């Protein structure tokens, strides 16, 4: 049956809570309302108030209480209503949760998922458009995933719930209802730490993740048709730990790499990908690694401003052509 990206998230939560009674959800408006985006819809009716916990507006509490329950064997799935608000819980994530196993000498676990609805392109402006993944991809002890398909939205969330470490799950808001797919019914997981080749190609590689994947695939179709270019598209799916082998494999294969993400350019995750390739696949490159990302500005509100800042299919097409011509 065809379902949307957000239905996939909702299904994963239902199934995981049904499968394991230690799984519970907690966050702002996750109960009666079913979440600001309806990701937790129906959970209250199915599992009751003790496992579907509405909290005050208190992100540090939400993550911190998740840690406390997780170290005692629970598997909390906590929600940041918008990924933008995750900064309010920054200390609890990077200092409390991420260091927990380490500072307990390996004798404690923090099996927690932090769901973070991220991304721009929905006129959310400065504080409802952010892609804050790069703040976390340099923190040992965390895992960071960013599903770009309906299948992965479900499979990665299930994998995250079953993982014994804290996982930040960035779900892209623009994909919630725009993305539909017919995925298999029943239980499956998408392993954390494994990238996926979305399209094979010969002349150039695009490495991307999250909300930018479909724009990259559209751009690849356009240049295939109009320019006869054969473009490979690698979806990272997990940013931390990064599937280094997959990145280096595609770089070595085509010799030209374009890294695309919706997050800002400077300090964005694309820098890490580019550095990895420069360090380990330099001899195989036929051109400098190129990055296409949001401009180094806040995600402005007015449509012409937002469009100017964000990457889109046309900008990706231009970047492919320029790189192919190098």
């Amino acid at each position, binding site marked *: 049956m065809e379902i949307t990206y957000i239905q996939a998230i909702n299904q994963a939560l239902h199934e995981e809570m049904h499968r394991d009674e230690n799984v519970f959800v907690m966050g702002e408006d996750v109960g009666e309302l079913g979440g600001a985006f309806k990701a937790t819809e129906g959970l209250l009716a199915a599992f009751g108030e003790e496992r579907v916990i509405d909290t005050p507006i208190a992100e540090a509490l939400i993550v911190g209480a998740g840690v406390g329950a997780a170290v005692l064997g629970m598997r909390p799935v906590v929600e940041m209503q918008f990924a933008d608000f995750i900064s309010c819980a920054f200390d609890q994530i990077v200092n409390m949760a991420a260091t927990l196993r380490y500072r307990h000498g390996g004798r404690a676990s923090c099996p927690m998922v932090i769901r973070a609805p991220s991304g721009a392109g929905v006129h959310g402006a400065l504080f409802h458009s952010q892609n804050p993944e790069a703040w976390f991809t340099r923190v040992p002890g965390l895992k960071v995933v960013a599903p770009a398909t309906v299948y992965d939205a479900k499979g990665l969330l299930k994998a995250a719930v079953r993982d014994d470490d804290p996982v930040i799950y960035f779900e892209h808001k623009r994909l919630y209802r725009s993305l539909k797919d017919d995925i298999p019914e029943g239980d499956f997981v998408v392993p*954390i730490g494994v990238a996926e080749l979305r399209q094979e190609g010969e002349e150039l590689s695009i490495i991307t993740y999250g909300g930018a994947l479909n724009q990259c695939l559209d751009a690849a179709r356009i240049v295939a048709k109009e320019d006869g270019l054969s473009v490979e598209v690698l979806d990272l799916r997990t940013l931390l730990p990064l599937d280094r082998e997959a990145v280096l494999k595609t770089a070595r294969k085509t010799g030209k790499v374009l890294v695309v993400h919706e997050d800002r350019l400077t300090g964005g995750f694309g820098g890490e990908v580019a550095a990895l390739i420069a360090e380990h696949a330099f001899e195989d490159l036929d051109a400098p690694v190129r990055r296409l990302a949001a401009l180094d500005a806040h995600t402005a509100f007015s449509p012409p401003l937002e469009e100017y800042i964000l990457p889109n299919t046309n900008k990706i097409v231009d970047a492919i052509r320029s790189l192919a011509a190098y």
Partner: protein
Amino acid sequence: MPEAQTKTEAGAVAHRVEYELQLYNWMKLIRAFEERVSRLHRQNKIFGGVYSGAGQEAICTGICAPLQPGDFVAPLHRDLGVFLVRGVEPGRLMAQLMGKETGLSRGKDSFLHGGDLERGVFGSTSMLGSSLPVAVGAALKFRMKRENHIAVAFFGEGASSRGDVHEAMNFAGVRKLPVLFVCENNRYAYSTPLEKQMAIEDVADRAAAYGFAGHTVSGNDLLAVFDLTERVTRRIRAGGGPELIECKTYRFHGHSEHDAALYRDKDELVQWESRDPIPLYEFYLEKRGHDIKRIREEADARTHEILQAAVEFAEQSPYPKPEEALEDLYASPPAAGRRQAR
């Protein structure tokens, strides 16, 4: 009065007497342990930050003694006593302070950041107050699983200014969770005195705003802390919701061993030294008819023995291997580059 009942009462009294001596031994051990740690620090055998709780022993002892196995305790950096009273082996604790492989965190973090969850002691971070939301989460688990345990979170009056403390107390109040909040008010956040931290005198006053009871008690009076904690924890365990105990106290040392605490008034220190919790409790035991000289000597001999063994164990323990720096980050190594259909 039937004979059997008299016997039971006599038994209870004997038990109480025994217990009161045990409390004394704990305070003595904590004080001696911390004095040893300060000395080892001066000798460069313990490096990094050392935060003495000297002067505050009655709090760790009085709060933790009435707790039960399975309760969750989140101590502060100054609460070495919590580890000891909860039953963490002194040797492992000393090894922790020396960065040894046998320490609680296997050399990963310094001082008291290594917890021992088997004994219900959660390792804190240096972001003071951040353990309070965690304790609230532990209490949520007890509630969900119908476990008759409570969570105890220590914080200073310094940390009471942090948002985490507000968020945790507010939510604990809303959900009536089994949490005991313990404020160790030692009047200084590093060098900043109470009057520059808050516009009120008692942190306990804030409890009312969260819908639960707040108590103040002399944190240097062991029996007062113990008796209050017994009453309060009984209510919390019975489902009465969170409560806050604010212990008024003073640290005899500076913020850390590097800090001469010159910002404090000498007279103030002398006044508080005269309220030292250990002689205060000895006075009580004497009033109870104990031969305090004998008890003190016995306690000193006992703690000396424990500490000798702990230091020996820690000094003989190996340092971790360098490459262990990359262990304990994750439960298991990341998945290898396995491919997956679709």
